[in-house]
């Protein structure tokens, strides 16, 4: 079914590596609206790939975790990146942290916000996935081609 020519078959193409330096984990609490919320601010980092090199700005983003009643942890990420050639990008991600039989770590879908008409516009026209294995501070990012 998925192998015909009716529509494209997506592929994951290695794009960037994102390393983050995490601040202390803030326990917000067991929420009246459900779930346990934790927040980890970003103290800096680096995104590096053939088509994008830049620093993650400290103090302007981070990760927020919501451990739901069903045991699944929802992770939302937002970061500001300053590229080595001076452009500012915003990166957002959403996904899950799981302790599955097959995978222990965090997987997110990612989208970029970039300046109109700039050299990084292709980032906003493309969807990405990120994976961070448990115990590491590095996301491996793939373009959804």
């Amino acid at each position, binding site marked *: 079914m998925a192998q015909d020519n009716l529509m494209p078959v997506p592929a994951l193409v290695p794009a960037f590596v994102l390393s983050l330096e995490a601040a202390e984990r803030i326990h917000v609490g067991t929420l009246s609206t459900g779930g346990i919320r934790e927040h980890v601010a970003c103290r800096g980092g680096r995104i590096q790939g053939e088509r994008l090199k830049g620093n993650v700005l400290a103090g302007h983003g981070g990760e927020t975790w919501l451990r739901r009643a069903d045991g699944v942890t929802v992770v939302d990420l937002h970061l500001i990146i300053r590229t080595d050639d001076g452009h500012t990008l915003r990166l957002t991600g959403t996904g899950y942290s799981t302790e599955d039989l097959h*995978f222990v770590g965090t997987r997110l879908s990612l989208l970029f916000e970039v300046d109109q008409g700039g050299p990084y516009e292709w980032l906003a026209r493309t969807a990405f996935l990120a994976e961070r294995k448990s115990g590491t501070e590095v996301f491996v990012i793939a373009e959804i081609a």
Partner: protein
Amino acid sequence: MKLEFALELRMRLGERIHIPVAEGQVRGAVLVEGGTFHGKGLQGIVVRGSGGDFPLVRHDDGARFESQYLLKTDDGQYILKRSTGVRHAAPGVLARLLAGEEVDPHAYYMRMTPRFEAPSGKYDWLNRTLFVGVGRRGTHGSIFRFWKVV
């Protein structure tokens, strides 16, 4: 990360509603008339009237789109499906898509990352799995194929 084929949806879509939210920007609303889905251990119908596709189209460029509707499995369970995606096409291709013409889906980029809310039990793996989707816009409906990230 690898992709493993999970399911295909065939949607029948109703009237295309355009909301001109700003100069050169239109929020589309295309409501679900019905449809079917098939995958490994997962099949059923798309619930008529339960939602739709809501693309934000910029005339000079591509689109971000949102979708939300309900699936009903053949054993009677409801699953909420929500999705955010990116569509990008060259200006000539986009004009043909907006005019409702049939366009070769290899001629544009349409990818999405659907998320599901399924009841606990046999379908709850959907609640903690990331998916990648590809869309094919047709004149009376759309076909989506979803791969799970493994």
